[in-house]
């Protein structure tokens, strides 16, 4: 059931928020020993919130489409009175005295929060094989990774434990788990959603967004969490619109098909599924336009420099005790400390230049469609994947098609567009100009309405 279906059932009194919450808690109890998606389950608080939601609806107080809907947040979001670990022993006893702004907005919209979701340690990686709290498993095949860093968010949504989950995306960390777990994942424009109360990884690259079961559900969550926050210096004053794509007409829309980079070194099944979805868009009336993009590998290099430097600056106070980090995260933190300050400055100068260059793309096309990841979910523990006939580091391969959008700050939506022969989801990515989330959601909804998608996860 999607949020929209659940919301409709609530208002028809076919189900109560307490029943929805009880069912979700039951799924967590049964599935979490296998998936390790939740680190903390706040069952009593959730049931109390659900009872309040039912009382309010009965009294005629309707907070909107998220009222009474079970959700959860990545354990990187501050939650008042609830343990918030960041997936790290550094914060194993940290209990915030306030909610992150995005969590507070979901609560104000009536959402029932079920707890905190597992993640890659400190959100600094893409496997969610957390050495301290256990590896999150992919509901489509528990031997495979759910992706990361918001791996618990992707797994929980795919397994039907929650209707939506909050994630963060610094170099693909919403879109990668969405791709691997067969959910929708939206990285909004930088500054669209407040980062206040979210443990930082990289101040200038961090984004907050939802993972959901459908494109329209992502729009509903974005409607609740988007908008200016004066207490977040990166928060934009750009006007907020209704993101819900009531219609999904793409006739005449100029959809860019990248001639370079995005379709190189792909798993064959990924390429076939994404090309099939693009053909569907064309049959729906979109104009598919081949386009040569700027040097995306250069964008990735610049993004990596910024991330390495900023993440190391964030975590430097804790590096005196090296034993509290997993080996992969520690390696990245060390690498960031070895880069000179001038490289960071140069990277931020190049970023400005590249954002300007990339903006020219939008004079030729309205949006871009690409694969989200070049591969389907690797097995847990796999270090390399074979793509285009050569072995590639799993982390670099998996972030290859998504990282540049964090540097550019552009909205990007991942949605499932097929299953591999092994039964693993394939994700495609829709990218649009800054603050055009409504457009990526409209194109995504057109694909969903046009039959692009995957069956419900059998987990």
């Amino acid at each position, binding site marked *: 059931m999607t949020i929209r279906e659940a919301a409709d059932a609530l208002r028809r009194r076919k189900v109560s928020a307490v029943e929805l919450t009880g069912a979700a808690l039951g799924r967590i109890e049964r599935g979490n020993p296998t998936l390790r998606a939740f680190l903390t389950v706040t069952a009593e608080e959730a049931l109390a919130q659900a009872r309040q939601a039912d009382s309010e609806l009965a009294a005629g107080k309707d907070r909107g489409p998220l009222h009474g809907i079970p959700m959860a947040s990545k354990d990187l979001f501050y939650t008042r009175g609830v343990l918030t670990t960041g997936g790290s022993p550094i914060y194993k006893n940290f209990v915030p005295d306030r909610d992150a702004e995005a969590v507070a907005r979901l609560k104000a919209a009536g959402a029932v929060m079920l707890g905190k979701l597992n993640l890659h340690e400190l959100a600094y990686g893409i496997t969610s094989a957390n050495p301290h709290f256990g590896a999150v498993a992919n509901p489509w095949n528990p031997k495979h990774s759910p992706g990361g860093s918001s791996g618990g968010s992707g797994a929980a949504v795919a397994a039907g434990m929650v209707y939506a989950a909050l994630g963060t995306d610094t170099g693909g960390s919403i879109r990668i788990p969405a791709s691997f777990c067969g959910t929708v994942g939206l990285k909004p424009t930088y500054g669209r959603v407040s980062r206040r109360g979210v443990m930082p990884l990289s101040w200038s690259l961090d984004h907050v967004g939802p993972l959901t079961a459908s494109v329209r559900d992502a729009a509903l969550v974005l409607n609740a969490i988007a908008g200016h926050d004066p207490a977040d*210096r990166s928060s934009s004053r750009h006007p907020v619109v209704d993101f819900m794509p009531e219609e999904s007409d793409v006739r005449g829309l100029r959809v860019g098909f990248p001639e370079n980079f995005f379709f190189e070194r792909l798993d064959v099944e990924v390429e076939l599924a994404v090309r099939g979805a693009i053909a569907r868009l064309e049959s729906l009336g979109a104009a598919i336009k081949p386009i040569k993009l700027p040097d995306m590998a*250069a964008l990735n290099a*610049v993004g990596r420099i910024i991330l390495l430097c900023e993440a190391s600056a964030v975590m430097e106070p804790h590096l005196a005790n090296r034993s509290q980090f997993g080996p992969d995260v520690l390696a990245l933190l*060390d690498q960031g*400390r*070895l880069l000179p300050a001038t490289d960071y400055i140069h*990277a931020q100068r*190049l*970023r400005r230049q590249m954002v300007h260059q990339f903006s020219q793309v939008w004079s030729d096309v309205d949006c871009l469609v690409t694969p989200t990841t070049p591969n389907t979910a690797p097995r847990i523990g796999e270090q390399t994947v074979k793509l285009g006939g050569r072995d590639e580091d799993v982390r670099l391969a998996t972030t290859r098609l998504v990282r540049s959008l964090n540097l550019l700050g552009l909205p990007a939506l991942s949605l499932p567009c097929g299953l591999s022969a092994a039964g693993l989801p394939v994700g495609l990515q829709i990218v649009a100009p800054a603050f055009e989330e409504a457009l990526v959601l409209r194109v995504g909804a057109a694909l969903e309405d046009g039959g692009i998608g995957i069956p419900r996860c059998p987990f």
Partner: protein
Amino acid sequence: MKDWSAIAKAAGLDIPAKEAARHSQPLDGLEEAFRPLVKSLTPEMEPAAVFDAVEEQA
């Protein structure tokens, strides 16, 4: 190629030499991609970082 172990030592970073040596491959690869880009920068190109004297007082 930079000697990352020597850089770590000179900077006074407590990175064990063995671990610093393991960073050579990823950092050398990144250097190779990044260094040519820097050559394209001109002095008037400012970083994408903003300081607003009024905002910062808020």
